[in-house]
């Protein structure tokens, strides 16, 4: 071995990497936030969490099987942590190793591919480390799995190529070991495809370029299969759990259509001009996160210098046996990485439409694009080599040498953040993180409390305000924006600290979070019940959280409430963190038994939570797949049924009138089409292919209907083929699940119902006077349309024959699935503000399965009871007219007035002064979830239009310190013409406590004439939008709620509990972790083992097992998918040992022969 060949480049890359690390970490601070949070902050804690599929620390628990890939890396770094490495040193060490292996690995790869001067191999290594893709998409993006991929790729290719070409088993072993050490890269599952696409292309290239003979090809294919199978076996410890447990979770978090929309929108940024120069325009130009300098002309030229070398290398590489493969791979990778951008746009879209799992590639530039700089580095050196050869013919090598040096200098200038500061954050916000000492102090205090007082039955920490997404923003010394990381910062107990993007679980967490806002001191037992159901022991209030602009509320508001709750005691305070403890008497352990229970059938949309309707008993929800046992229903205290679905739709009387007008007026007909058409540009812009397709068909069908109505009006013939074409359009509209279509994000359900009902009610008008055959055809279409509209909840199954008074044009319908025939109480919930409505809502007409009932209500706390009604099991439909409240707009004197605002004869005139003038009316009693309708007449004087704003207390504050309303629409006006406007607003954000409406006119401050608008008849009305719920009380509560006793519990690990239980009555065994069918309870009386037949959802998120056999049992509660990890580890270990023994044996035999 020529040692000298390797020594100086090794030292070069060590020094170069060390220099960069010194520059990046000179402040002595760590970097964090973004999608990964604080990855290297506490490897020991991450290791504790990641070695199990079930992450108990992220309460109330969730399976994260791909977290297993973090184990090897965190195992090694936890040892460094033990010997005294702090967070800064840990992160610096990681980044140093990544940089070094990237550069040195590419250097070794280049030497292995072709005979190249050491100097050029070093250049190739440098280019691989320092290029636009690495700076932005790897370092700035800060996804740690990408770091590992970038570092491991060169070694994976070296070892794989040696195995494929030479059959070197030792290289295969090194390939597998590299995978083991760098397995963290597979934390991003898409990188499975990235790595194996590359390895497959390399192998395929060896087979067919050139194609020698079948024997040689078969041998290579066999090697590929052996390598792949051994890779599967040695990675089975995380692969099998991930693909067994993961898919159900992934399907709940993303839909196929969402992935397609993401792909299309991201592909607008990965067009060829950007992909070819390895640039992500979103971060570099649009957001300018690394500085505005990248918009400069010179900076925009620099990346193209390397592209020239790469293209020359690609073309010249076609003529060189050793490089031709990489030329082809570069082109293939470019076509993959650009996603659905042209050329050859459609295959990606086709794949996404037909294969859900392809959704992991919804950002192909991020997932596959890393292969571009990888292969590009090889072609860059090939290109340099070709140019040198070309110029050397003319003795002009110094030209190309100069060009190379200048290009690399320009490259270094382009990547200045990597050399001057750091590439992670923004120039004015470096992405530093300094976790306040108060977090450690709080965690130590809780740990101490737990050790002293709560060795068993430890409970959880609830962090308030509770972010419902996965990210959070804190006002720390250097700020923090990124993944909520309480599971790392608090190792004392599991933390309920963020949502999971799983609707049933997030719905329950929302209820837990908002209980502190919605319930007062007088009904604090509801808050207590929620805390007990979630097994909360401590509450940590974060006063350092950035709460504006999202779904959070003001922590100081909650602090006042927490201080008043009887069952909580403020126990400690560390700077911005306050710790409250649930009193021991009121704490409920994680595992307990209960006899009394109630059955809850929750809604899918979760706009209201059952806690204020239910009693103290356990809530049982039948699981999605199983039908609950009839006996189990009968033994419940009560059954509460929420609507399975609900929807608003325009009243049919209103529609019939509209259809009559459309049938007689061409202008109105065109106006209807314009309404449908106006959404199209937005759909196109947002890449909503499927929604756009449905919208196109709706336009087409509406145009056809209008033509047919016109023909009818003019007594012309309507042909069979016209009706056939029309029906085809309708069938396309309904060919996919319209209710879950993304089109409903752009056209609200009421308007969609209106458009389709116009069709439905137009058909009978067409039918009159037609020949019998055509009439039969029209009937068929009518029947089809009726069925589809009912199926997709756009019209009720039973016609609502409710009286329609003036002002009522819509109705709300609730569809229930009744589990069993009982006498149910009809309740209208969340009745705050009932006095605003006619009769204070105490008299209401409800349509029950098409029959109108005039009911009298009785107010019970926050609920209006409309009496009892017997319902059979099956489907039930209840509806009411959507009525509006009295006018809530403030009187003129109480309006906030800016500018010159006057009133005369009921007309308010708003004139801008200094460029702005507005009126603002607060909405009294506004609360989260409320729906308001705002109507007024407006006329412009010198104004092109005005701004209509909805201001809420939770609106974010911009850098200038001003609140930014989430709704701010500019409305165009024609001058001197009264226009009547009406807006039905979206429901207020759930955390809203105050809201107001603003009408703003603005003008150029320098202008001589100031803009003005006149307003009259301003109305703000609350729209009745409350849910209807059905409740049946079945049995008296059993006075003895304890069905037995938990005699002993021992938690062996986050996935295993042992204990002893005594059952004295049939009871539910409750386990307060997130419901998952993988949690298996096994009971043993010493002679036989058995498992409860029913495993149901408890308290709308947890686990409940019904045990009906009396006796004393040992129990094991185990998350069974963890066994897959243990088995997989055994298989992997056996495979490694087997391979090592095979290699030793072969060496021994070779030595002997």
């Amino acid at each position, binding site marked *: 071995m020529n040692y000298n060949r390797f020594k100086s480049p090794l030292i070069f890359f060590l020094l170069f990497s060390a220099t960069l690390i010194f520059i990046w970490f000179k402040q002595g601070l760590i970097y964090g936030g973004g999608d990964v949070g604080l990855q290297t902050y506490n490897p020991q804690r991450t290791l504790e969490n990641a070695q199990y599929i079930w992450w108990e620390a992220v309460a109330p628990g969730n399976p994260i099987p791909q977290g297993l890939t973090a184990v090897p890396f965190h195992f090694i770094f936890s040892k460094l942590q033990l010997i005294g490495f702090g967070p800064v040193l840990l992160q610096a060490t990681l980044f140093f190793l990544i940089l070094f292996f990237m550069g040195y690995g590419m250097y070794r790869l280049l030497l292995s591919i072709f005979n190249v001067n050491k100097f050029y191999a070093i250049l190739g290594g440098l280019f691989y480390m320092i290029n636009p893709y690495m700076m932005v998409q790897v370092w700035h993006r800060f996804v740690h799995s990408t770091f590992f991929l970038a570092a491991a790729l060169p070694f994976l290719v070296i070892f794989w190529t040696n195995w494929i070409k030479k059959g070197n088993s030792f290289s295969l072993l090194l390939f597998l070991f590299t995978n083991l050490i760098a397995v963290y890269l597979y934390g991003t599952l898409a990188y499975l495809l990235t790595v194996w696409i590359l390895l497959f292309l390399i192998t395929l290239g060896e087979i067919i370029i050139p194609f020698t003979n079948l024997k040689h090809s078969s041998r290579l294919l066999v090697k590929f299969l052996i390598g792949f199978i051994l890779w599967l076996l040695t990675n089975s410890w995380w692969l099998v759990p991930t693909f067994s447990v993961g898919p159900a979770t992934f399907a709940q978090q993303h839909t196929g259509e969402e992935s397609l929309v993401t792909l299309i929108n991201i592909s607008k940024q990965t*067009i060829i001009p950007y992909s070819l120069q390895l640039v992500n325009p979103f971060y570099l130009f649009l957001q300018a996160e690394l500085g505005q300098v990248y918009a400069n002309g010179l900076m925009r030229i620099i990346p193209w210098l390397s592209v020239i070398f790469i293209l020359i290398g690609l073309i010249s590489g*076609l003529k060189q046996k050793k490089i031709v493969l990489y030329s082809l791979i570069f082109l293939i990778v470019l076509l993959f990485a650009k996603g659905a951008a*042209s050329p050859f746009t459609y295959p990606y879209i086709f794949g996404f439409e037909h294969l859900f799992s392809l959704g992991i590639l919804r950002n192909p530039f991020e997932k596959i694009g890393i292969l571009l700089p990888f292969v590009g580095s090889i072609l860059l050196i090939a290109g340099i080599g070709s140019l040198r050869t070309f110029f050397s013919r003319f003795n002009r090598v110094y030209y190309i040498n100069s060009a190379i040096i200048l290009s690399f200098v320009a490259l270094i200038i382009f990547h200045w953040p990597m050399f001057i500061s750091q590439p992670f954050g923004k120039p004015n916000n470096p992405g530093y993180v300094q976790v306040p000492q108060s977090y450690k102090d709080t965690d130590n205090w809780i740990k101490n409390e737990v050790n002293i007082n709560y060795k068993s039955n430890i409970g959880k920490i609830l962090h308030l305000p509770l972010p419902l997404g996965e990210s959070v923003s804190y006002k720390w010394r250097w700020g923090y924006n990124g993944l909520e990381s309480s599971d790392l910062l608090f190792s004392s107990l599991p933390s309920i600290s963020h949502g999971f993007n799983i609707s049933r679980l997030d719905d329950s967490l929302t209820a837990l979070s908002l209980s502190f806002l919605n319930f007062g001191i007088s009904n604090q037992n509801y808050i207590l019940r929620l805390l007990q159901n979630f097994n909360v022991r401590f509450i940590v209030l974060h006063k350092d959280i950035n709460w504006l602009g999202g779904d959070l509320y003001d922590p100081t508001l909650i602090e006042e409430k927490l201080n008043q709750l009887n069952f909580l005691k403020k126990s400690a305070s560390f700077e911005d963190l306050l710790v409250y403890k649930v009193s021991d008497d009121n704490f409920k352990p994680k595992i307990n038994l209960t006899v009394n229970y109630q059955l809850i059938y929750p809604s899918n949309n979760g706009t209201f939570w059952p806690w204020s309707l239910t009693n103290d008993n356990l809530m049982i929800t039948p699981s999605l797949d199983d039908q609950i046992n009839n006996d189990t229903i009968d033994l419940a205290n009560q059954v509460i049924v929420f609507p399975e679905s609900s929807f608003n739709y325009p009243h049919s009387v209103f529609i019939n009138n509209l259809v009559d007008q459309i049938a007689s007026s061409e202008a109105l007909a065109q106006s209807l089409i314009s309404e449908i058409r106006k959404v199209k540009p937005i759909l196109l812009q947002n890449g909503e292919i499927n929604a756009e397709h449905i919208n196109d068909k709706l336009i087409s069908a509406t145009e056809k209907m209008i033509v047919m109505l016109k023909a009818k009006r003019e007594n012309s013939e309507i042909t069979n083929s016209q009706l056939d074409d029309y029906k085809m359009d309708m069938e396309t509209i309904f060919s996919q699940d319209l209710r879950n279509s993304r089109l409903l994000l752009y056209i609200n359900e009421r308007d969609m119902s209106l458009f389709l009902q116009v069709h439905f009610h137009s058909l009978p008008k067409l039918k009159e006077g037609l020949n019998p055959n055509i009439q039969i055809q029209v009937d068929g279409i009518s029947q089809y349309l009726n069925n589809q509209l009912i199926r997709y909840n756009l019209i009720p199954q039973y016609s609502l024959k409710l009286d329609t008074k003036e002002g009522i044009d819509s109705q709300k319908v609730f569809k229930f699935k009744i589990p069993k025939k009982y006498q149910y109480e009809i309740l209208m919930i969340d009745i705050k503000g009932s006095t605003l409505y006619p009769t204070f809502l105490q008299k209401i007409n409800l349509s029950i399965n098409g029959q109108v009932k005039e009911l009298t209500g009785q107010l019970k706390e926050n609920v209006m009871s409309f009496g009892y009604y017997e319902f059979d099991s099956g489907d039930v439909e209840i509806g009411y007219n959507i009525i509006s409240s009295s006018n809530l707009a403030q009187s003129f004197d109480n309006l906030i007035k800016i500018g010159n605002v006057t009133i005369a004869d009921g007309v308010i005139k708003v004139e801008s002064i200094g460029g702005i003038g507005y009126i603002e009316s607060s909405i009294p009693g506004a609360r989260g979830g409320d729906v308001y309708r705002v109507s007024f007449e407006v006329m412009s004087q010198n104004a092109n239009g005005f701004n209509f704003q909805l201001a809420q207390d939770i609106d974010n504050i911009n850098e200038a310190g001003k609140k930014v309303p989430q709704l701010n629409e500019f409305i165009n006006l024609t001058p001197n013409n009264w226009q009547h406007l009406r807006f039905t607003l979206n429901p207020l954000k759930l955390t809203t406590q105050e809201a107001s409406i603003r009408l703003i006119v603005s003008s150029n401050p320098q202008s001589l004439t100031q803009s003005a608008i006149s307003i009259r008849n301003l109305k703000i009305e609350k729209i009745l939008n409350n849910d209807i719920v059905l409740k049946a009380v079945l049995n008296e509560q059993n006075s003895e709620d304890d069905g037995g006793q938990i005699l002993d519990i021992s938690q062996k690990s986050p996935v295993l509990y042992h204990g002893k239980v005594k059952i004295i009555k049939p009871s539910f065994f409750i386990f307060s972790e997130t419901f998952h069918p993988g949690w298996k309870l096994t009971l043993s009386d010493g002679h036989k083992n058995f498992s409860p037949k029913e495993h149901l959802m408890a308290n709308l998120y947890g686990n409940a097992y019904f045990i009906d056999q009396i006796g004393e049992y040992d129990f094991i509660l185990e998350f069974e998918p963890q066994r897959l990890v243990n088995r997989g580890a055994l298989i992997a270990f056996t495979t490694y040992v087997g391979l090592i023994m095979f290699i030793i044996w072969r060496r021994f035999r070779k030595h002997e022969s």
Partner: protein
Amino acid sequence: MRVNKLILSIIIFIISLPIFIWLESGFAIKSATDFVKPLIFSASLVISSVRFYKHYLLIISLTLLFLMVIFYLFWQIPTADWLGSVGIGMFTIYIIGYLPELIRKGYVEKL
């Protein structure tokens, strides 16, 4: 012989055109401009099958890529995108034209 080559070229063009239309837009043709790229690609495929004219394909595609850079530098991104996508498409077809030689010899003897 020339007639045979002409017929073959026409056949290649006719067969490849719907394939390129599907690759570009999945047969969802919204306007006449949706035909332009598939037509260019089909023509490129025909050219790449004729040895004599093949190198023009390389020259045209590289010229288009060069123009892409110019328009990109002047912030004419949609035009740069169009030029770049046509250029890369033609370049890809040019490379595909060498596949038989690559499979046979393992490299291209003469570009």
